[in-house]
């Protein structure tokens, strides 16, 4: 109790005298903790609590049967014929767009006759409360009517309502026959009878999934083996809901990288705590000496300073919790948009501040504070009482080992280069992150030597150009080199993160732009209307494709078809191209560097495929190898002819000839059309012709340029969150500059007061502080750009490559970098305004007061 009181009196009460500085430190920790928490919460909501929308109304089942391109309906018969008591629920799973609201919802085809009879036997109803969903007895005949649908209550429809739905490229009228409750977390879906759904989708003779409920004995694993034996080779039997796990696995790298980015602000915050505690240690040296002479132990001094740091950490964490919760709602929108456009259609769950996230905040706040303050607290506790009590200039001469630290920096830099060459561990670029951390530490260690070299060389020269205030500013910075170094370290780390991510994203963007030139060779593209999603592949009517190919201005139509499949435990896209139509230039898009024509000729009609670059990283395959796919009822092996660059999606893609695909999956409807215009026609006139020809079909025709613009828009949106994270890190660093300059002003008030005695005007004092801020910003920008360049190499060639498998060409996004750096620089100088004002308001008489 007495100790706590002493701690308050000696450590906390002095903070009240400088509330602005104490608050800035707390705010820095608050933001650091808040960002980490926000990304954690938003990540969990956007991806972690992710449940595949197709699991809607899936009910309680044990196993599921899947096949790429659909399970032959005959499998249902096979299963029914087995002498087991298994509940078999075949499903069609697709999507439909409500015409009025443009809302995309899962479209489920269920065997309603069978299901309703099973409900009548009141056996584990899978559709929530059976009464509300069950068609009334007299409405049984609606079941098989092709325009009957059942919808979730959250849609606000009632039985008898008419609803217009866009299914594939067809708009049709349906009638609501019943409403089921979907409030308990289920996404609303549109339910039809299986046969009606097959008809609406033109998908005859197959279903998308068969759910199975098996008896309790023997084990599910046993059942799985037993049933597998009875099934054709192409179909897969696995635990129900595996798709959700697969999607979650796919999102892991995305989440992981964002999570790491979110720690940047906290790292920057650590520098600031270090600075705050270092100021406190220096200022309290005499007190420390006195207390030690009066009998306090080393441990007590150590505990006191660590306690001060922990106080900042705890206070920051306490504020960080609510701030993080608020930030999470913004972050979840950005993250959900990215997940939706790059990975899988899903809707974010709700944000929940649970015990784990509260613990996380309460651990990382004080944790990072204590870690960053430990060496200082130890140093303070080791000073002898006599030495500490000795007043005078010496107390400001904190020890600093420039050249020793420079050697350490060099060693760490070499270690970083080595770490960057180590392959990924468990699919994660663990050593890449390690290399990045080593580089940050190396740069922090090199900064004192760097700052000293620059400041001592430039001070006279600065004095000549900017006047005596600049000379004084630069001298004062080099006189407190340790403090200067910590500040430059914090700010440059933030700038480096910003620059490195900026360079990485800029390089990526440039790579994507170049790639799109080759990848999108056609003049016009056509797809079914409705929001696009990476895991939904609605189809275009075959007749429309034929009609368009006969238009006068059309030279050729490439019918592209895509299926969402599962490969080796991860979602993937299986696509086919129409090699007979494809016009391509002679640029290579392939790892082998061979011309496009040559590569494509090798897959024409053959059991051979091309795979995208991300696919090779996810599944450890390469050109020359083979992959086995389950297509419909058959299993077949395909030779990998080559690997192509693909920056369009992080999901792996397998590409084959349309003729090959049709042999296994005979559905001829294309998902997209790539249309080539004859040399005599313009793409505008052809676009008009196509629009006219597609009356009665709901399709969208986009020009090559539209598609590119859209792709870049999505790209930019994807990285919006990284920019937001960097901005917070920079804000934290700039706040640190303000706080530290404030401390600097307080500590140097004697000199500042003296200047007034010697004839300095208020403006000159202000200018000196602002020049100090400007110099700090300049040093930090130089150091930050150098570190940022090194980090960007690690990001591009190690971390990104190992987590996503993209080859990115290095590119300097000069304009973006210059813009960002100027903003940071301006902010740094502005951060000097308040401390400068404090300096001006100092009373010189008190400052120079002497006894």
């Amino acid at each position, binding site marked *: 109790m007495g100790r706590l009181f002493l701690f308050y009196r000696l450590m906390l009460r002095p903070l009240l005298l400088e509330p602005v500085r104490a608050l800035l430190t707390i705010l820095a920790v608050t933001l650091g903790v808040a960002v980490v928490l926000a990304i954690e919460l938003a990540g969990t909501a956007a991806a972690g609590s992710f449940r595949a929308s197709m699991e809607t109304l899936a009910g309680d089942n044990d196993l599921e049967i899947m096949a790429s391109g659909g399970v032959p309906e005959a499998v249902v018969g096979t299963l029914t014929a087995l002498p087991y008591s298994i509940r078999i629920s075949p499903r069609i799973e697709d999507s439909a767009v409500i015409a009025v609201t443009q809302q995309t919802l899962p479209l489920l085809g269920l065997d309603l006759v069978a299901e309703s009879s099973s409900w009548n036997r009141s056996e584990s109803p899978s559709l929530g409360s059976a009464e509300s969903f069950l068609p009334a007895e007299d409405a049984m005949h609606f079941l098989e009517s092709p325009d009957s649908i059942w919808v979730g209550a959250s849609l606000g429809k009632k039985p008898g309502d008419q609803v217009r739905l866009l299914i594939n490229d067809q708009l049709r009228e349906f009638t609501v026959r019943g409403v089921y409750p979907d409030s308990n977390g289920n996404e609303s879906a549109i339910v039809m009878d299986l046969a009606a759904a097959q008809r609406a989708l033109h998908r005859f003779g197959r279903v998308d999934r068969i759910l199975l409920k098996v008896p309790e004995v023997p084990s599910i694993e046993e059942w799985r083996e037993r049933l597998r034996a009875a099934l054709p080779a192409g179909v897969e039997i696995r635990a129900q809901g595996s798709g959700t796990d697969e999607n979650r696995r796919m999102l892991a790298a995305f989440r992981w990288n964002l999570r790491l980015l979110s720690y940047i602000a906290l790292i920057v915050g650590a520098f600031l705590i270090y600075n705050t505690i270092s100021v406190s240690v220096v200022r309290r040296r005499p007190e420390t000496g006195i207390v030690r002479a009066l009998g306090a132990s080393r441990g007590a001094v150590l505990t006191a300073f660590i306690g001060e740091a922990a106080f900042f950490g705890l206070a920051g964490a306490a504020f960080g919790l609510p701030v993080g919760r608020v930030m999470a709602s913004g972050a979840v929108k950005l993250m959900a948009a990215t997940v939706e456009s790059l990975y899988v259609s899903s809707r974010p769950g709700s944000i929940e501040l649970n015990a784990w996230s509260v613990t996380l905040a309460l651990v990382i706040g004080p944790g990072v504070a204590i870690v960053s303050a430990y060496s200082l607290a130890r140093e303070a506790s080791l000073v002898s009482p006599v030495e500490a009590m000795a007043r005078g200039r010496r107390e400001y001469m904190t020890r600093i080992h420039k050249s020793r630290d420079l050697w350490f920096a060099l060693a760490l830099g070499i270690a970083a280069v080595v770490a960057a060459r180590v392959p990924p561990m468990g699919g994660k670029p663990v050593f890449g992150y390690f290399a990045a951390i080593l580089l940050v530490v190396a740069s922090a260690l090199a900064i004192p030597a760097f700052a000293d070299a620059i400041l001592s060389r430039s001070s006279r020269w600065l004095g000549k150009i900017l*006047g005596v205030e600049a000379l004084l500013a630069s001298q004062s910075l080099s006189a407190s080199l340790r403090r200067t170094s910590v500040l430059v370290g914090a700010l440059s780390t933030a700038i480096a993160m910003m620059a490195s991510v900026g360079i990485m994203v800029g390089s990526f963007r440039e790579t994507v732009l170049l790639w799109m030139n080759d990848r999108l060779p056609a003049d016009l593209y056509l797809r079914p209307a409705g929001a696009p999603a990476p895991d939904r592949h609605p189809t275009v009517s075959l007749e429309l494709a034929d009609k368009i190919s006969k238009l006068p201005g059309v030279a050729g139509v490439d019918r592209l078809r895509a299926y969402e499949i599962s490969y080796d435990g991860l979602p993937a896209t299986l696509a086919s191209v129409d090699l007979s139509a494809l016009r391509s230039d002679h640029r290579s898009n392939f790892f082998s560097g061979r011309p496009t024509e040559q590569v494509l000729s090798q897959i024409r009609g053959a059991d051979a495929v091309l795979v995208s670059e991300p696919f090779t990283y996810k599944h450890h395959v390469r050109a020359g190898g083979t992959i086995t796919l389950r297509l419909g009822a058959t299993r077949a092996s395909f030779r990998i002819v080559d690997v192509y660059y693909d920056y369009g999606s992080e999901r792996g893609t397998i590409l084959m000839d349309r003729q090959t695909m049709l042999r296994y999956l005979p559905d001829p409807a294309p998902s997209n059309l790539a249309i080539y215009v004859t040399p005599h026609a313009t793409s505008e006139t052809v676009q008009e012709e196509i629009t006219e020809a597609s009356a009665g079909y709901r399709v969208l025709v986009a020009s090559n340029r539209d598609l590119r613009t859209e792709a870049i828009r999505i790209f930019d949106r994807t990285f919006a969150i990284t920019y937001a994270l960097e901005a917070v890190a920079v804000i934290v660093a700039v706040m640190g500059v303000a706080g530290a300059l404030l401390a600097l002003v307080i500590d140097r008030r004697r000199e500042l007061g003296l*200047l*007034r005695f010697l004839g300095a005007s208020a403006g000159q004092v202000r200018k000196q502080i602002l020049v100090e801020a400007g110099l700090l910003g300049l040093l930090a920008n130089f150091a930050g750009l150098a570190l940022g360049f090194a980090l960007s190499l690690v990001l591009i060639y190690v971390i990104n490559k190992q987590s996503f498998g993209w080859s990115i060409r290095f590119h300097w996004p000069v304009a973006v970098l210059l813009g960002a750096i100027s903003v940071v620089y301006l902010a740094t100088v502005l951060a000097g305004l308040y401390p400068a004002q404090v300096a001006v308001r100092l009373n010189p008489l008190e400052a120079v007061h002497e006894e």
Partner: protein
Amino acid sequence: MAIVSLQTVSKDYLTDGQPVHALDSVSLDVNRGEFVALVGRSGCGKSTLLNLAGAMDFPTAGRVMIDGVDTSTLNDAGLTALRREKVGFIFQSFQLLHTLTVFENVELPLLLAGKPNARAAARERLASVELDGLGDRYPHQLSGGQMQRVGIARALIQSPALLLADEPTGNLDTVTGAIILELLKRLTREQNTATLLATHSAEAAALADAVVRLRDGKIEEILRR
């Protein structure tokens, strides 16, 4: 005309709501070439008087005229200009900037005023305080007496009409202090400045043209020689 003229000047400070009369109706004129010692116990108001005379502070009542200008009529810029032109300060603990060389310390007031040829002026002043050749040293490489010489050279760099020294020998041993006082007195003559020196050493008082004795913020007596 007196270079500095205090006319029934009072200065009150509020300490815990209680007014402290640091100076109480003090009137004093100091002319060019005069070397005046302010003596009295600690807390009698010496520093307060010097600060008012140097336009670093304003009186609660009365007027302070520096070279004929009433300080209360000036704004901050005007006061700064006045200080630059007319006043040099010398401090008990020298108040040198440790990060600057001797030359840089001495030329600082000129640089702050934006005047040219600072280095030549600094060299000349350092010669007059007998520190030739030490200009490139840093303060911590000097003895206490040398540091105060630098302080004096700095105070004189602008050839001020008024030199204010607040216990300039307080941090020096007796012998060195006596040498510094001799120096100050000589420079007062040579530069024709009005020098006001706060001290509680009898030796200092003995050297002065006039001794002003303060007690509890009031002038007790003025002895002129």
